[in-house]
C-alpha cells in the first residue's frame, strides 16, 4: 500500500488513482472505500468511476473539473474515509456441476496437480474467494483465493466458444464466464446461475468486495435451476 495515492493521467478525461502495487485484499479494500465515498459523496464533474484491483479510474468532464481539483479532493478524503461505511461483505454461493461435459478440463487439472478429480472439486468448493473486481466481459469476476494445490496454466489452444456459466482455472485465478466468449481457461464445471442478465435489475449478479463460494450440485439440480429462468 502506498503512503499517498499515486495519480496518473489516462488521456484528457481520465485520472487513474493507484493505492498500491499488488493484488492484496487491504489495498483493494482501500480502492473500494474511496470508490464508495465517490458514490455517496460525488465530486462535481465526475462522470463515472471504475474500481479495479489496486486502482480506480475517475472519468471526468473537463469543462467542469480537472485533475488538479480531483487530486486535491481525493487526498483530502484520505483521513476522513470512515464517514463512509463499507457495508459488511456478503458471501454469494454459486452452484456448480463439475466434470463431464460441464467441465471438460477437470481431468487435466487433476492430472496436472497429481490429484484425483474428486480432490480438485473438494479443494475448489472449500475455498472462499474475494471478488476483487468485475470486467473483461459484463459481470466477469476477478477472484482471489484459489488454492495453489490446483493452480493450472491456461490451455495451449483457447476455445473459440466457452459457454456462459463455465467455471475455469487459469494459473492462480479461478472465475466464471458470464457470457459466451472465446477463452483459454481450463474448464472444470458450469453453473446454471446467470451472472449477467440484461433483463434483470441489477443486470449483474456479483459485486466487488463480496465473497464467493462454489457449491457442488448434480446434473439434475443444474437442469432444475436452469429451468427457473424464463427463456
Amino acid at each position: 500500500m502506498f503512503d499517498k495515492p499515486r495519480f496518473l493521467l489516462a488521456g484528457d478525461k481520465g485520472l487513474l488513482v493507484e493505492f498500491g502495487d499488488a493484488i492484496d485484499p487491504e489495498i483493494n479494500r482501500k480502492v473500494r472505500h474511496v470508490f464508495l465515498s465517490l458514490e455517496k459523496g460525488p465530486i462535481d464533474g465526475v462522470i463515472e468511476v471504475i474500481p479495479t484491483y489496486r486502482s480506480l479510474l475517475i472519468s471526468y468532464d473537463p469543462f467542469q473539473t480537472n485533475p488538479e481539483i480531483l487530486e486535491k479532493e481525493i487526498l483530502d478524503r484520505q483521513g476522513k474515509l470512515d464517514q463512509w461505511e463499507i457495508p459488511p461483505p456478503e458471501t454469494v454461493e454459486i452452484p456448480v456441476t463439475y466434470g463431464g461435459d460441464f467441465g471438460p478440463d477437470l481431468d487435466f487439472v487433476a492430472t496436472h496437480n497429481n490429484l484425483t478429480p474428486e480432490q480438485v472439486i473438494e479443494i475448489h468448493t472449500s475455498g472462499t474467494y474475494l471478488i476483487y473486481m468485475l470486467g473483461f466481459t459484463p459481470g466477469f469476476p476477478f477472484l482471489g483465493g484459489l488454492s495453489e494445490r490446483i493452480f493450472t496454466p491456461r490451455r495451449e489452444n483457447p476455445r473459440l466458444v466457452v459457454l456462459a456459466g463455465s467455471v475455469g482455472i487459469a494459473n492462480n485465478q479461478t472465475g466464471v464466464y458470464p457470457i459466451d466468449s472465446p477463452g483459454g481457461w481450463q474448464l472444470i464445471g458450469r453453473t446454471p446461475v446467470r451472472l449477467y442478465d440484461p433483463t434483470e435489475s441489477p443486470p449483474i449478479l456479483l459485486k466487488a468486495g463480496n465473497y464467493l463460494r462454489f457449491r457442488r450440485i448434480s446434473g439434475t439440480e443444474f437442469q432444475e435451476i436452469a429451468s427457473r429462468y424464463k427463456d
Partner: protein
Amino acid sequence: MEIFTVIQPGAYTTVQDRGRFGYQQFGVPICGVVDVFAYQVANALVGNLQGQAVLEATVFGPRLEVVNQGLIALTGGNLSPVLNDDPLPMWESVAVHPGDKLQFKGIRTGCRAYIAVSGGIDVPMVMGSRSTYVAGKIGGVEGRPLAPGDRLNKGKGRAKVGVRISPAFIPTYSADIEIRVILGPQDDYFSGGIETLLSSTFTVSDKADRMGYRLEGDTIAHRERVPKSIISEPSVPGGIQVPPDGQAIILLVEQTVGGYTKIATVISSDIGKVGQAKPGDRIHFVQVGLEQAHRILKEEEEKLESIRESLRE
C-alpha cells in the same frame, strides 16, 4: 413509426448513441459511436436532441428501403451513399419518401458513416442507452448488428426542411492521419519506446474494430527490467496498449479493463479520426499536453455550437 426496412445490412451496421455510462464498474463498456463529432453533426442536421440514436455503418454500408416519410442526414466517412439512382449529398439533411432506396456504392474516404433520422432511431433503452453492444447482446436491434428484414422505427421528429452545414465545418478523412496523444498512464515503463511512438509511422492492420485498432510498425520497446504487463486496471477509449510484442493497439469503446501497459492515450477530439481510419491507412502520433488537449476539446465544442447555431437560423 417505421422508417427503414433493412434489405442488406452491409458489413457491420449497428444502432449507436453517445454511449452507455455508469456500468463500466460491472464490466459493461461504454460502446456508442466512435466518431462523436460526425454523430453530433448528423443529429443536429435533422433537428434531433443530443444523444439520439443513429446507425453506424462500417466500410460497406447497408441497403435500406424507406417505409415512411422522414428527414435523414449522412455524415462521417464517405461510403458513396446513393438515394434511388442519384448520389446522396452528405453533411446535409434530405427528405425521404416511402419506397426510396438508400444504398452505398463503396468506400471513398473514412471508414464509418452515420445515418441520422429526425426523431432518432427508436429501439429500447438498455442500461440507459440504445447503443448496441454485440458481445453483451444488448442495445440496438436485439443486441446485434442489423440483419436483412429488420424494421427500424423512428421517434417523433420536429424538423421537416433540409439544411446543410458550411463546407468549412466538414472534416476531411485522409489516409495519412495525425493523431495527438497525451503520454501515460504507463509512460514510465518506456524510454526509447516513446521516441519510437512519436517518430515512426504506423499502419492500421486488418484487426481493427470497435474494441481496438491493432497497428503494424516499428516495435515499441519497454524499458529493460520492467514488467511488460501490469495488474489489470481500467482502460479508457484512446488508450495505446503496448503488449509484450511491442505492437501497439489503440483501444476504442468496447473494453473496460486490461493488463497491458499503456504508453499514451489519444486525446478525445482525435478518437473519431482513429475510428475513421481503415486498414492500410497510416498513423503518425504527436504529443500534446493536458491543457492543450482540453483547449482542443473546447474548440471542438465551440465548433459544434457554431454548427448548431448556423442550423437554427
